[in-house]
């Protein structure tokens, strides 16, 4: 048996999905697109039931990807039952989608979700609703698991004798005529197709043009003009008005408002949080606190993972062996030492890097889903929309860019929230230029050595250069390679709600699992390649100047000189490609002590190096994520070239101008 879940966004659809399927769920993509598809299984009296979560939509027109996916699924996969999840606190609006669903299928079960909250707003007559519509109606409170069992029971055993919404007689007559003409084409769902043909639905019109049904297209066109003449408005407005007057009527039949005009909590919170002047400062404070939380909590975990795998040098000259060392010694017992070294110092170290990313990624997703589920992100999108549009993104784009300061991997994954494909690509192209936590860590280390007296100034200047570049490039991209039509940005600001722990943890785990599986393998592979370059020819000191990496760096050093890059700096950049924080480790291999490192570069060279580090090729994890999210190798190449170009440009300008002016030398 197959059940599909439909409903508006913000109705608690995913909470019901989680409640129905528990942990038996799978997240993938709808074929060919990056819209998320969730499937799961449940059991009822020994019967196995597949449950598919359709994208949240307000209607079922042909003009958004989500709506097309939802309706095509019902048309083609023919689910046995569609559960329409309705936010009972926002009844009238939610009933509109119901009228569209009722045209598409007869077997609908209504879940009146958030029923407890709705009771404070209206008196809802559930029995009357069942009688009027002829389908099962189940009040639910998904966050407390109330009504879920009954919902499943009604879906399997319920009685359906649906009473479809009807249009005025003159329209209905024409729908019937089209329906009977449709019989010979054997497409099924005649009433739905008849209505859509009348409405001039782009997708359906194309379908009938393809099968050469000229007669029916002409007839529909003729009827459409007649109706437009009679009702004095365009067909879309006329048909939407009919549906809304049905849902308006139904709403007033079944619900009686109480306490009209009272001030809600959402009103009060928005009065401050979405305030014209205070809104943006409040947002910045919220993000600052969120990042503090993420780094405070993640650091001990990252240190523990690092200690476990890599061990630690003790102050008294001794050392604690990590798993990598131990496993190396153990394996050397029964295999050649080069192989053991490759497995442990190459691949296992790669795995350790993947795991050390994990705490940050999970926590950033925790914050993201908390902000999203509480309803706050919609306010941010509202506050920032006009500003972000200048760089070609909608308001929500600010979230991905800011997450980039934590880690570019979850930041790029979060661009899925952008509805527009072009804006999503633009956002992905800009994101690696935001310095992530790892790069900021390297900046902090190097500036503390080279710019001890004005460390803060140098750090802030790097951040400002990054933000200015992102803004400038966004502006240019919007006008050139990522140019496109203005798309509707009609967005609902849902009432504030306290997110559930279960909902957040499921979301957090899904995302992190995706990263581990897909990006993880690529990172481990890259770790292997870096090992080969750093350890060969066999016998040299790992990552030293006589290894392949060192030789390449020597070879590049005349070019590097133009940009103020020393051979050791170039070596460290190779390692940084693997993970940016490794730059610090590679310096510790290359130099005896801090003094030697400080003597190797002038202040000007150090600054050019920092600029290079800021922009150059993103780390492997980020590239793997870019590929996973765009499915385009060309796009990955674009991101690499973009970063390299900027890095070369900035370090060249800084070094040459600095030399000319004779500063920092």
């Amino acid at each position: 048996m197959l059940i599909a879940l439909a409903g508006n966004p913000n109705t608690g659809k995913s909470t019901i999905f989680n409640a129905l399927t528990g942990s038996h769920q799978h997240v993938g993509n709808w074929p060919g697109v990056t819209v998320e598809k969730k499937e799961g299984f449940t059991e009822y009296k020994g019967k196995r039931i597949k449950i598919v979560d359709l994208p949240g939509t307000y209607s079922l027109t042909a003009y958004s990807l989500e709506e097309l996916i939802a309706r095509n699924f019902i048309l083609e996969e023919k689910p046995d039952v569609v559960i329409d999840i309705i936010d009972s606190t926002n009844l009238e609006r939610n009933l509109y989608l119901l009228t569209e669903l009722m045209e598409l299928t007869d077997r609908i079960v209504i879940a009146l979700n958030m029923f407890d909250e709705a009771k404070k707003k209206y008196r809802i007559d559930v029995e009357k609703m069942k009688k009027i519509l002829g389908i099962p109606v189940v009040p639910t409170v998904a966050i407390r698991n109330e009504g879920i069992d009954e919902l499943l029971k009604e879906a399997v055993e319920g009685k359906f004798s649906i009473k479809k919404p009807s249009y005025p007689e003159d329209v209905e007559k024409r729908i019937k005529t089209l329906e009977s003409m449709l019989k010979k084409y054997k497409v099924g769902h005649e009433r739905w197709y008849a209505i859509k043909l009348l409405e001039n639905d782009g997708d359906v019109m194309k379908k009938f043009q393809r099968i050469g049904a000229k007669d029916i297209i002409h007839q529909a066109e003729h009827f459409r003009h007649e109706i437009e003449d009679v009702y004095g408005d365009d067909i879309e407005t006329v048909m939407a008005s009919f549906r809304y007057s049905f849902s308006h009527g139904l709403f007033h039949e079944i619900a009686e408002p109480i306490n009209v005009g009272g001030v809600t909590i959402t009103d009060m919170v928005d009065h401050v949080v979405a305030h014209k002047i205070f809104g943006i400062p409040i947002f910045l404070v919220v993000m600052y606190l969120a990042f503090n939380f993420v780094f405070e909590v993640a650091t001990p975990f990252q240190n523990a993972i690092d200690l476990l795998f890599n061990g630690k040098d003790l102050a008294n000259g001794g050392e604690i062996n990590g798993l990598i060392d131990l496993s190396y010694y153990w394996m050397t017992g029964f295999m050649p030492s080069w192989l053991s070294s490759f497995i442990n110092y190459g691949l296992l170290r790669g795995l350790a890097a993947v795991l050390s990313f994990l705490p940050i990624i999970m926590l950033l997703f925790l914050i993201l889903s908390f902000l999203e589920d509480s309803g706050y992100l919609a306010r941010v999108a509202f506050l920032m929309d006009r500003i972000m549009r200048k760089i070609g993104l909608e308001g929500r784009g600010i979230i991905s860019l800011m997450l980039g300061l934590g880690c570019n991997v979850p930041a790029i994954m979060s661009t899925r929230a952008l509805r527009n494909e072009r804006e999503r690509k633009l956002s992905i192209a800009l994101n690696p230029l935001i310095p992530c936590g790892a790069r900021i860590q390297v900046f902090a280390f190097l500036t503390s050595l080279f710019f001890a007296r004005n460390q803060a100034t140098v750090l802030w200047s790097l951040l400002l250069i990054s933000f200015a570049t992102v803004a400038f490039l966004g502006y240019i991209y919007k006008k050139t390679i990522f140019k496109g039509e203005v798309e509707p940005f009609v967005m609902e600001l849902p009432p504030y709600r306290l997110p559930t722990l279960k909902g957040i943890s499921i979301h957090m785990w899904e995302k992190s699992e995706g990263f581990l599986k897909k990006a993880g393998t690529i990172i481990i592979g890259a770790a292997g390649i870096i090992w080969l370059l750093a350890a060969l020819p066999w016998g040299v000191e790992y990552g030293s100047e006589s290894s392949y990496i060192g030789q390449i760096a020597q070879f590049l050093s005349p070019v590097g000189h133009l940009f103020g890059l020393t051979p050791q700096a170039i070596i460290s950049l190779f390692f940084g490609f693997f993970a940016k924080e490794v730059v610090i480790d590679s310096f510790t291999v290359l130099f005896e002590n801090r003094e030697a490192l400080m003597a190797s570069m002038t202040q000007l060279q150090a600054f050019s190096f920092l600029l290079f580090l800021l922009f150059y090729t993103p780390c492997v994890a980020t590239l793997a994520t870019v590929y996973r999210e765009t499915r385009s190798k060309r796009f990955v190449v674009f991101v690499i070239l973009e970063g390299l170009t900027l890095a070369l440009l900035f370090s060249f300008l800084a070094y040459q101008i600095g030399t000319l002016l004779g500063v920092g030398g």
Partner: protein
Amino acid sequence: MRLSELQPGESALVVRVSGSGPIHRRLLSMGILPGTVIKVVRTSPLGDPVVYEIRGAFISLRRNEAEQVEVEKIVPLHLIPPGSMVKVIMVDGGMGFIQNLHKMGISPGRVIEIMKGCCPMVVRTPLGQFTIGRGMAYRIYVR
């Protein structure tokens, strides 16, 4: 006038949703249709987008979207000071509510006089003098 010309706190009745294409359809499916009551809630820092209350939900529209919506300014009855004469434009509710008000002489097109301000209000209609509670006054729109 256009929806984009209204100030926060003001209400309006949709007359027409112009244009075509994705924006047009999106406005319709969000329930912005001729006869819908819209209230302006608040503007963002740069004055665009703006949040509107539409059919019980808060919806944010950009300026170019709100410009497509032709409206007529209306005022909910509870904001009208005593002593004024106003014309009823629409009554927002189910059949029962509309009929009850009709019996008091409050229906679209009728002129009523406010005797006492909100709330409860006292109004004089062609059919006599009536007391109207807060819950009712919020759903009667006049000009």
